[in-house]
């Protein structure tokens, strides 16, 4: 029970922290802004408390008292800070998500609610039926969590080069968070990792729905929610306790904040700061997060050079970097000092480049990609079919202010995905086994972010304006 309370406190800390430096302050609709902060806060809070726990553990100071002491102190300080900032700004009326006028929104809400409850009920049942999670959950992430939650000094085993079958060089965000809950609860149970997995899934859905609502209104947001709930491969992995859905959350958080940064009503500095936090935490969640981190900064700087507005963009990149710093520093510490890379992909050096000449590997990777796209859903309710229906009937409308953020987001996602393909092309492991055992999860890592970009580019779902009526102007105070 205390373990679950420690998880709840981590979520509360994240929520209060995000509310105190709110990236979507004044954006409408209000429910979406609060939901966005709660979902982003869940991701940020899990990351932050996981980092604090790891540092306590390494310092030999991790105990139930220390965990709850720090949690309560953080909640008190952040609640005080939030109280101070809450009334400090006059409300503005951003038109982004607020002007949705669609007479059937209530019906979409009912449908989304039914789909969510149906899916959630089955996910909870699955989590109960499979309390230890799937292979990587117990053989990798929760194994390392047990070391981190162990007696003094046992944390070193999580990074032992003797763990040849458990990737000791993998980042520790998820393991450290589960270990924190176990240490706080005083018992190693199956509840903490299962709850953590479901929290990340809920945060993922909430992030997508709220971000689309802030940019495109409630009706588009509910459709986005219905499409992601139709992604059956995502639902299948949700209770597995793998790190791919947490990673998808951090990707989506960063991409959503970069897009929201384009909205004139969002607090640009904090939007970029939290995007940086998500990027850093992605790197601290899985190795693929490092590719995401590099791609975001490369794309940002490329845009700066392209637009020749180095000063402005460098200042923006500064906010991004400030947010990413904790995750980046921990990743560097892990990779260069604690557990130098032992993965054959890295240790093979330049010999992997020779595999780039093998045309068969390209065919195999492309085949696996299309196969996994096909298996994202099933039958007529396949999410790609749903997107095609929306694209054909609702059509496209990309507002000028979202053009650049959407370009950046698309470039980042494309580069990340290409880097994944590059890894497959160069891996010294058996390619067939590698793509069979991981490609579906790699597709899912970027899928929610892709959905967000799709719904930003899709025309707002609303009742058509009567002919001759001028569109409402944005009212910004």
């Amino acid at each position, binding site marked *: 029970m205390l373990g679950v309370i420690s998880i709840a406190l981590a979520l509360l800390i994240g929520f209060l922290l995000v509310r105190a430096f709110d990236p979507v302050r004044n954006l409408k609709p209000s429910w979406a802004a609060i939901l966005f902060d709660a979902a982003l806060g869940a991701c940020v809070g899990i990351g932050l408390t996981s980092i604090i726990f790891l540092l306590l553990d390494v310092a030999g100071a991790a105990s139930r008292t220390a965990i709850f002491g720090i949690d309560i102190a953080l909640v008190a300080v952040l609640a005080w800070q939030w109280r101070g900032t809450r009334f400090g700004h006059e409300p503005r009326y951003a038109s982004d998500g607020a002007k949705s006028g*669609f007479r*059937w929104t209530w019906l979409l809400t009912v*449908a989304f609610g*039914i*789909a969510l409850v149906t*899916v959630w009920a*089955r996910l909870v*049942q*699955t989590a109960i*039926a*499979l*309390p*230890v999670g799937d292979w990587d959950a*117990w*053989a990798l992430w*929760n*194994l390392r969590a*047990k*070391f981190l*939650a*162990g*007696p003094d*000094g*046992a944390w070193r*085993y999580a990074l032992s080069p*003797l*763990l*040849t*079958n*458990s990737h000791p060089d993998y980042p520790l965000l998820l393991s450290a968070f589960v270990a924190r809950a176990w240490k706080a609860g005083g018992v190693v149970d199956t509840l903490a990792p299962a709850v953590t997995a479901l929290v990340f899934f809920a945060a993922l859905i909430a992030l997508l729905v709220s971000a689309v609502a802030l940019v495109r209104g409630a*009706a588009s947001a509910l*459709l986005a929610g*219905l*499409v992601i*709930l*139709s992604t*059956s491969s995502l*639902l*299948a992995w949700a209770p597995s306790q793998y790190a791919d859905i947490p990673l998808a959350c951090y990707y989506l958080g960063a991409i959503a904040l970069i897009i929201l940064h384009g909205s004139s009503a969002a607090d640009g500095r904090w939007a970029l700061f939290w995007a940086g936090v998500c990027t850093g935490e992605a790197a601290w969640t899985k190795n693929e997060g490092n590719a995401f981190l590099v791609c975001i900064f490369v794309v940002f700087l490329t845009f700066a050079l392209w637009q020749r507005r180095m000063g402005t963009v460098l200042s923006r990149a500064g906010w991004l970097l400030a947010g990413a710093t904790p995750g980046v520093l921990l990743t560097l510490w892990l990779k260069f000092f604690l557990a130098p890379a032992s993965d054959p992909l890295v240790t093979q050096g330049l010999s992997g480049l020779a595999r780039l000449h093998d045309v068969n590997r390209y065919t195999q990777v492309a085949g696996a990609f299309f196969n996994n796209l096909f298996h994202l*859903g*099933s*039958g007529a*309710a396949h999410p790609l*079919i*749903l997107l095609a*229906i*929306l694209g054909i*009937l*609702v*059509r*496209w*409308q*990309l507002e*000028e202010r979202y*053009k650049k953020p959407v370009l950046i987001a698309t470039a980042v996602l494309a580069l990340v995905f290409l880097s994944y393909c590059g890894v497959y092309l160069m891996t010294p492991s058996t390619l067939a086994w590698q793509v069979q055992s991981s490609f579906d999860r790699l597709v899912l890592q970027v899928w929610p972010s892709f959905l967000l970009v799709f719904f930003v*580019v899709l*025309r707002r*779902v*609303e009742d*058509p304006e009567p002919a001759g009526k001028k569109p409402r102007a944005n009212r910004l105070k």
Partner: protein
Amino acid sequence: MMMAGQPSSGQILAACATVTLLALWSAANFYHASEESPEANSDVYKIGEQAARFEDLMSALPATGVVGYVSDLPSSQTLGAVLYSGAQYTLAPRLVINLSLKPGAEWVVGDFSKPLDVVQFGKDRGLTMVRDFGNGAVLYRNQAR
């Protein structure tokens, strides 16, 4: 602003209705499909059973430290890998490592998939049996230490 022609209200309504119905069908399908294939949601690697199998052995081991591991199945085989990884997870926070990788470990866990002469199996590897906990779980002490 990048724009395509504005859709009619009928087109928007048709899109919403189709997506909604298909998504609801997908959710119901997910609910029933996972109900009909319980093996997909069960502990196929029997990790839960490992905890029960090693329960008594665990109490005989120190709370932490490096523990050796021997088995009748090589970890290069699928079942051997399942047993090895399962034992590592179950016995953590002790670091369970194949004896060939860490020959100096004082305590060694024997994890067997079938009945065999566990005393002789240990002797062949310089190990003295401390106790056979049954169900393939054996505790050895390393003589070569």
